[in-house]
């Protein structure tokens, strides 16, 4: 740790430099959350209402984003799809956080053989590409929203586990922990009151990156037809439907794609900024 005053100073400078871009992130993420929460109020039509006079209609005043092959209003479907996509992203990130923290904390705190075994197990799972493992798990846990959340979080926890283990290892031999131990504190107290709080900063950053990763995984799987299926909808499955009509009705894929891209961008930028602000050791070069 560097001297307090200079760290405060760089923190302050970063905070100010960052504020311009933050507005974009806050606006996009805020809008997405609001739309998801208020879907029935925001959507102009029910998501499954068909307008048989307007099949594959281009964007117009009646249907701002046009309609799909069954004459369903794309804006309304996108609004309801926001619920699915955001829910999968948020929930899978949170579950991954809990699982990964537990695994990493045990591994790092207990150490020794337990640590070695747990890390070896992790290495085996790392031998499979994330998306492949998610697909395999979704065969077992089923598709649909709960299945997607479970499959994605059962892959996402691994990064968290490594991070938490590393942090615990970094902190557990510090003098202040020794002092707490010498004063008679039990393992639970040391772990929960003294070690885990040290990991909060990096964990928040990780959470911010896990959310778009979950949204990406869900939309990718739904796009190729291995994720959320009708009648439920998500940004990915909407884009997938749009793909089959790409040549003549590109609006069907453009709007869902834009939603995915902007949301991913906002979360990734937010993650970068949080990392710069909360973790002074990483990304110190960016304040050149």
């Amino acid at each position, binding site marked *: 740790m560097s001297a307090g005053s200079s760290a405060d100073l760089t923190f302050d400078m970063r905070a100010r430099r960052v504020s311009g871009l933050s507005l974009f992130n806050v606006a996009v993420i805020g809008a997405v959350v609001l739309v998801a929460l208020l879907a029935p109020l925001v959507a102009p039509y029910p998501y499954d209402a068909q307008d048989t006079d307007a099949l594959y209609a281009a964007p117009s005043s009646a249907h701002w984003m046009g309609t799909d092959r069954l004459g369903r209003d794309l804006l309304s479907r996108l609004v309801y799809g926001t619920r699915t996509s955001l829910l999968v992203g948020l929930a899978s990130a949170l579950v991954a956080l809990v699982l990964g923290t537990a695994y990493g904390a045990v591994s790092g705190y207990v150490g020794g053989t337990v640590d070695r075994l747990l890390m070896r197990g992790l*290495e*085996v799972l790392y*031998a*499979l*590409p*994330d*998306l*492949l493992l998610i*697909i*395999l*798990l979704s*065969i*077992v846990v089923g598709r649909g929203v709960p299945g997607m959340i479970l499959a994605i979080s059962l892959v996402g926890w691994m990064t968290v586990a490594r991070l938490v283990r590393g942090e615990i290892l970094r902190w557990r031999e510090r003098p202040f922990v020794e002092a707490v131990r010498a004063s008679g504190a039990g393992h639970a107290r040391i772990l929960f009151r003294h070690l885990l709080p040290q990991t909060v900063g990096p964990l928040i950053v990780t959470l911010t990156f896990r959310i*778009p990763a979950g949204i*990406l995984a869900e*939309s*990718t799987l739904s*796009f*190729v*037809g*291995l994720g959320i299926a009708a009648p439920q909808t998500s940004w990915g499955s909407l*884009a997938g439907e*749009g*793909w089959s009509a*790409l*040549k003549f009705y*590109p609006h069907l*894929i453009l709007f869902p*794609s834009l939603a*995915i*891209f902007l949301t*991913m*961008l906002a979360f*990734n*930028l937010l993650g*970068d900024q949080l990392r710069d602000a909360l973790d002074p050791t990483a*990304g110190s*070069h*960016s304040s*050149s």
Partner: protein
Amino acid sequence: MIRVAARRLGWGLAVLWAVATLTFVLLRVVPGGPFDAEKQLPPEILANIEAKYHLDEPAWRQYVRYIGGLAIGDLGPSFKYVGRNVADILAETFPVSFALGLVALALAVVVGLTFGIVAGERPGTGVDRAGMVAATAGVALPNFVLGALLVLIVSHRWHLLPPALWEGPRYLVLPAVTLGLGPAAYIARLTRSSLLDVAHHEYIRTAHAKGLTRGMVLFKHQLPNALMPVVTVLGPLAATLVTGSFVVEYLFAIPGMGRFFITAVTNRDYPLIMGATLLYAALLVIANLVVDLAYAWLDPRVRVE
């Protein structure tokens, strides 16, 4: 160095065995079999089918049969492509995916390093900022969105390149760009930040002080050290390219492993799913092994260990 390689190789084989076991257990847990989906089969026919694929045997015997087959490169018959072996299907589709992945990787490395070096050489300038905004956007752009945009503009609007299929070099361009651009953006960001990290070191100042040109300092002193983190991520990156191929092969109707894997999952063709999974895992193990060796070759400190 040979001992390190041998140890890694042994661990790699252990990992593959674990992956094979894991996949076997996972797919055994799934309720319902691959032949349920079709219309109700008479019980005698179902029994015949199950006997043919040894599905009537106890799980442990199926497992022993499977692992035994693996040892001699036999991945069993496909459930859906009747009369074809999983190994044959993979042997046919893998070269396609491999070619696509290799071109995409080359593209990612060349484009990523170029942009990363250009930006990292002039931190804070307009070029740097523009490059990094583009790279951030590139990281956030899902490859199916990118692929759709490319097909829409380059194929449908401009009629420059074919939108699908796999019939020659022209057919490679759009899929490779779709697959490689995200990793290129990632490499660019990493190279830039790594160059900037190295730039603060004393030996860089010494190099400047003894009168070397900027280019000499960059290529002789700064870059070799800055490349270490980039080399490290190439292994996992190969994984991204491999999995990216699911989507890209689906988008462009390319007859590679990725597309067959998706079909296999939809069809519940378990032997094909397991075979493809193992091949993917083997690729990753090899990629990481190569990265480890490259690392040892680049960094004398690792070699000693």
